[in-house]
Structure formats: structure tokens, C-alpha cells
């Protein structure tokens, strides 16, 4: 497979794995965050609603208490008691001691005349007949005003009650301390941005809000947006910051208690959660990406190795298939050659038999005939040998198993060739491993392989050179290296050296069958012969024989 195909495959695996693993993570993260945010929002709204309702009730209770004490004082005292300012001062003292938050107390006649007054302002003698609150209290009996400036030119509000005493009626009126009232209202504000204040029906501030607005100014809130029950609305300012407003009505719907809270502050817990979630998801992303890339690379690397190993095996398989096919063909051809050879040998033999008869011996061409017949016989013999070798190895010849000492087999083989090598000034050195096991193999076949390879090495060197024979165990194989410092074999010819009839020797010198036969022998044993050669440096043949340990007899 080409490199680009592996890259492509790697890219595909990475993309698919990432899609499959990251998509659910994103969906899960988003869903969890959405649900959490929704619940958090609901909780905040619930909380602010509760606070507004509770605070409105508290303020309502405050007003009712003040109204009640005022009613009680009016009901239990006569007009004469009340208009006596000493008495009024005592009553005022008792009221402030029991309930507090009263600024002043005054008695007003049914004609609007301020008859008696206790308090910090000089309001005695003023007439309220024209004031709207006077009508209200005269008709309804009890009246709590909105905040207004009045004669004293300070924002305040009053509670007034009417007392019917026979035919005469009079009004007891008290002013509520705006600071105390504001404090009570404000007790509901929370945090750095929280606020609590009261608006009237038109949206005018009845207590001072914490930020921006002043008392008696028009609030930006539209009070009509709030219902009769506690209502929450959300507003966004120019900067996009959201604020929640909870409004709860009190004083028969005339006032609206507003509690406000910036969402950002309330949501800070949620934002922390969001950041934590994002960090976790990003870490997850990185981990998944890293793991995916790493794993994929590893898989592709393994795949490449397996593929190249398989290609190697395929090449070997093709080689052995080729050799088997060639072997079969060679066997068939050789067999057909054998029959005519047999006839030629006999016929020539017969001619030779006849030549020894007396009449032929007298012929002056006798020697010529004799030589001719000898030549025929020699060449038939040569052909016979080739065919014999070929047939010998082409037919199925399973190696027989005997205990073989590879080193001593090598030594015997080298002994056989020593004289031949010395004649050509070639030195054979050995470096044989001492701890090779005795293996189950076929000694004569192994010897033939070593003989072929060392003979080839001698022939390759020609004269003067060095042959090195080494042995050693590599995994489950015994490796024998036969290295010569001959001329080497060019790369294009290296592939062919195991093919039958391939020879680098001169015509008539070699049959081209030695390596083919050797390859076949070793392959049948389950081993292999490899070649490593460099032109000008030499050649190494490595024979790997399976180190099969003989069964104990």
C-alpha cells in the first residue's frame, strides 16, 4: 500500500472516532448546562418572589400596627383630652415607646384646623381643609397617604384616623419617620446589587432606591406590568446586563414593593459551574483527540508492518510456487530426455563393442572412430548427470530427520573443500557458535547445501580471497552465514540466483542448479536462504535452518 493510502486511512479513522466521541460529549455538556441554567433561573425567580411577598407583608403589618395604635389612642381619648397639648405629648410619648417610628402627632378639627400638635415642626394653626387627604380621611375614617412634601417641605407620609364623638368629629394624625420606614423596606435588599423600595400607582418612589433614583422621583419601571399578585419581570440595560424585578402590591394595591436583583450576581454560582464544565469538556476534548491520534498512529504503524510482512511472505510464496512449477516442468522434460539418452548410450556401446572386432582394428580410421565414440559417451554422460541432478531434486524428496550437529557438518564440508581452496589461494575461516543445539534435520542434504554454497564462494572469488563461515542461533533458527570477498552480485541478478539454470559461471562450468536445489532443500526443511551482496565487496548467503530439537528416543 502507498504511503498516501495509509495517511488517508489514518485521517478517516481519526475523523470518525472524533466525531463519534466528541459529538455526544458536546450534546451532553450542552444539555446538562441548559437544564442546570433553567433550574437555577427558576430557583432565583422563586426566591425573589418569596422575598418580595414576605417583605410586602412585613411593610403592610408595620402600617397596620401603626394605624391600629393610632385608632386605639383616638378611640380611648376625648376631643378635650387630645387638644390639651400636654396630654397629647404624653400620648405621643406612649405611642413612640410602644410602637415607635412616629415623627409627630396632631389633632385636626372637622373644619381642617390643626388644633393641637406635638413634633419638631411648627404646624399648629394650619388648615388642611383644602388638602386631598383631609377629604379621604373624613369620608373613609382611616387614611394612609402617599409620600408628599407638604408644609414642612420634606418627603413624608401620614396616617390619619377620624374619631366620631357625638355630633362632633375630629382627626388624629401622625407622621411616620421616613428613615425608619425606608430602613424597614430596605431590609429586604440582598448582596451588592440588590435593592428594595416602594412605588405608588404612578411609579413615583415612596422610599429612596439604593441606586440612581431619589425619593419622589418617577421610577423607570412601569407599575402596570405588575399584577395583583407578586410578579417577576426581567429587564436588560444598555450594557446587556439583566436585572430581575419582583413587585408585590400592598396598601390595597396603592403601593408596589419592588425588589430588584442583577441576574449576573445571582447567577455567579451558575457561571462558576459553567466555567468548570467548559474546562472539563475542553480537557476531555484534548484527551480524546490525543488518545485518538496516538491510537490511530499505532494501529496504522502495526498495519504497515503487517502489510510489509505479508508482502514479504507473498514474495516468498510466489518464489516457491515458481520453483515448484519449474521443478515439475523440468522433471517432465528430463524424463523425456532420458529415454533417447538410454538409447544413445546403448547404441554407442554397441558400436564400441563392434569396434574391438579384428576387422575394424585394421582400419586406418580406427583411432578416429574410437575417439568419436568416446566423445559421444562423454557428452551423454554429461547430459545424464544434468538430468540426473535435476530429476533427483525435482521429485518429491522429503527430508529425513536425524540428529544433526550443524557445526560438525560445516567442518566436514570445509575439510572436503580445503584442498580445492588452498590450490586457489583461498583461506576459509570459521567462527562457529559453541552452544548450538543438536537439531533434528537431514545431514546429507544440509551438507549438500553447504557444499554448494562454499563451492560457489570459491568459484566466485576465483583465486586469492577469504571465505568466512559463521554459525549462531537466532530465535528458533540456526543461521549459517557464508561470506566471500568476491566480486559480488548486482542487485538485478540477486533475485534470479535461486532460479534453476541461472548461472554466472562460464558455459559448461556450472549447471545453474546448485542454488535452486539448495533453496529447495532448505525450504522443504521449513527454513530459508537469503542473499546479501554488494558489487566489489562480496556476497553473504545466510542459511536459516529451523532448530527443531530431536524427540527423545
Amino acid at each position: 500500500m502507498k504511503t498516501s493510502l495509509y495517511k488517508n486511512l489514518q485521517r478517516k479513522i481519526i475523523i470518525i472516532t472524533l466525531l463519534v466521541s466528541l459529538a455526544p460529549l458536546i450534546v451532553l455538556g450542552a444539555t446538562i448546562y441548559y437544564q442546570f441554567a433553567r433550574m437555577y433561573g427558576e430557583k432565583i425567580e422563586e426566591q425573589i418572589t418569596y422575598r418580595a411577598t414576605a417583605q410586602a407583608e412585613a411593610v403592610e403589618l408595620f402600617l397596620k400596627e401603626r394605624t391600629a395604635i393610632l385608632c386605639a389612642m383616638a378611640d380611648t381619648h376625648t376631643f378635650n383630652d387630645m387638644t390639651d397639648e400636654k396630654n397629647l405629648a404624653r400620648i405621643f410619648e406612649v405611642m413612640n415607646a410602644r410602637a415607635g417610628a412616629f415623627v409627630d402627632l396632631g389633632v385636626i378639627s372637622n373644619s381642617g384646623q390643626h388644633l393641637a400638635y406635638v413634633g419638631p415642626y411648627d404646624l399648629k394653626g394650619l388648615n388642611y381643609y383644602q388638602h386631598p387627604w383631609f377629604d379621604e380621611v373624613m369620608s373613609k375614617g382611616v387614611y394612609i397617604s402617599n409620600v408628599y412634601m407638604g408644609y414642612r417641605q420634606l418627603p413624608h407620609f401620614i396616617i390619619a384616623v377620624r374619631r366620631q364623638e357625638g355630633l362632633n368629629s375630629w382627626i388624629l394624625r401622625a407622621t411616620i419617620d421616613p428613615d425608619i420606614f425606608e430602613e424597614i423596606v430596605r431590609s429586604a435588599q440582598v448582596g451588592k446589587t440588590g435593592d428594595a423600595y416602594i412605588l405608588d400607582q404612578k411609579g413615583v418612589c415612596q422610599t429612596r432606591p439604593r441606586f440612581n433614583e431619589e425619593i419622589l422621583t418617577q421610577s423607570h419601571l412601569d407599575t402596570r406590568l405588575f399584577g395583583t399578585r407578586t410578579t417577576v419581570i426581567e429587564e436588560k440595560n444598555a450594557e446587556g446586563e439583566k436585572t430581575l424585578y419582583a413587585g408585590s402590591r400592598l396598601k390595597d394595591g396603592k403601593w408596589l414593593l419592588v425588589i430588584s436583583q442583577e441576574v449576573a450576581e445571582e447567577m455567579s454560582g451558575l457561571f462558576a459551574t459553567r466555567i468548570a464544565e467548559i474546562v472539563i469538556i475542553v480537557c476531555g476534548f484534548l484527551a480524546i483527540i490525543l488518545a485518538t491520534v496516538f491510537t490511530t498512529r499505532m494501529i496504522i504503524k502495526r498495519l504497515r508492518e503487517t502489510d510489509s510482512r505479508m508482502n514479504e511472505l507473498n514474495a516468498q510464496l510466489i518464489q516457491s510456487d515458481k520453483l515448484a512449477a519449474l521443478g515439475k516442468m523440468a522433471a517432465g522434460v528430463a524424463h523425456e530426455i532420458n529415454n533417447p539418452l538410454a538409447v544413445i548410450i546403448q547404441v554407442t556401446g554397441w558400436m564400441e563393442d563392434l569396434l574391438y572386432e579384428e576387422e575394424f582394428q585394421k582400419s586406418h580410421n580406427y583411432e578416429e572412430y574410437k575417439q568419436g565414440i568416446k566423445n559421444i559417451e562423454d557428452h551423454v554422460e554429461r547430459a545424464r548427470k544434468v538430468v540426473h541432478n535435476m530429476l533427483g531434486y525435482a521429485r518429491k524428496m522429503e527430508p529425513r530427520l536425524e540428529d544433526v550437529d550443524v557445526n560438525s557438518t560445516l567442518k566436514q564440508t570445509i575439510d572436503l573443500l580445503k584442498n580445492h581452496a588452498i590450490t586457489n589461494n583461498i583461506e576459509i575461516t570459521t567462527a562457529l557458535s559453541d552452544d548450538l543445539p543438536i537439531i533434528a534435520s537431514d545431514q546429507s542434504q544440509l551438507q549438500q547445501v553447504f557444499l554448494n554454497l562454499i563451492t560457489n564462494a570459491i568459484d566466485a572469488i576465483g583465486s586469492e580471497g577469504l571465505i568466512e563461515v559463521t554459525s549462531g542461533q537466532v530465535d528458533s533458527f540456526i543461521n549459517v552465514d557464508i561470506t566471500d570477498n568476491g566480486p559480488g552480485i548486482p542487485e538485478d541478478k540477486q533475485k534470479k540466483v535461486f532460479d534453476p539454470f541461472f548461472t554466472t559461471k562460464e558455459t559448461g562450468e556450472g549447471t545453474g542448479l546448485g542454488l535452486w536445489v539448495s533453496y529447495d532443500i532448505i525450504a522443504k526443511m521449513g527454513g530459508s536462504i537469503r542473499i546479501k551482496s554488494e558489487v566489489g565487496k562480496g556476497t553473504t548467503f545466510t542459511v536459516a535452518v529451523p532448530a527443531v530439537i530431536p524427540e527423545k528416543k
Partner: protein
Amino acid sequence: MDAFRALVVDDEEVFLETLVKRLRKRNIDTTGVPSGEEALEIMKKNLFDVVILDVKMPGGMDGIETLREIKKIQPLAEVLLLTGHASVETSIEGMKLGAFDYLLKPIKLEELLTKLAQAFEKKDAHDQKIRSARIKELIRFPGRVLEQVKEDES
């Protein structure tokens, strides 16, 4: 000692003819036939010491079949198989059936002669044994042997 008699069976006519001539030239009483059928035919009439038999004879009885039949007709005749490489296994099979040995084609006459000599020797030893056994038997039970001889002749 009587002259040995050999029979050569091979479907390759030139080979057969030449081999017969060469053996005769070396004073071996040799007959040649080109097929298994003819070999059996001639062996029913004549005794042979050694049969040189080609294993592969396409077109008629093959060597192994012929060998089986020969062993029925003349169990004492030694059989030398001639074989190519492709039929070495067959020849080994043949040896189990009682063939004396096999020779790989193309054969050299010297090798054949050596093998022939060994075969003749074996046959001769065998004949000797039988002869001495018969003599011993004749001495002990002359009547029985004479009866058998009569039977054989008839």
C-alpha cells in the same frame, strides 16, 4: 554350470535390440520382447534366470503388472527393474513384490552387468538349495519325488 538365460522386456525397440545384441556378445543367452504380454507368453514356454523389465511401458501392461504375473508363472526368476526417476516409487513398490533390484535409466552396461551377475548368483544359490533339498528328499522318500517328477512331466 548351465549358461544363464536372460529376458529383456522394453517397448523402446532400438534400445531392446541393441541391449540384446550387447548381452549376447558377452555370452549371455538373451531374448528380447517389446511388451509385458509377449514376455508372459514366452515365459510360459521357456525358463529364464533373470528378467530385465522396463517399469514404464505405455500402451500395454505396465512393468508392475507384468512383474506380478511373472512371479506367478516363474516365481524363481529374478527380476531387475529398469526405471526413470519419475517411477522410483513404483520400483520400490516392485521390490516389495519380489523384484531383485532396480536400475536408473539411462543405464551403463557395466552397472547392468554387475547387477545381472548378482542376480544370477542369487538365482544360482537358490537353485542349488532346491537341488540339494530335492536330493535329500530323494534319498529319504524316493517314491514321492518320483511321483512329483512324473506329475511335472505330464
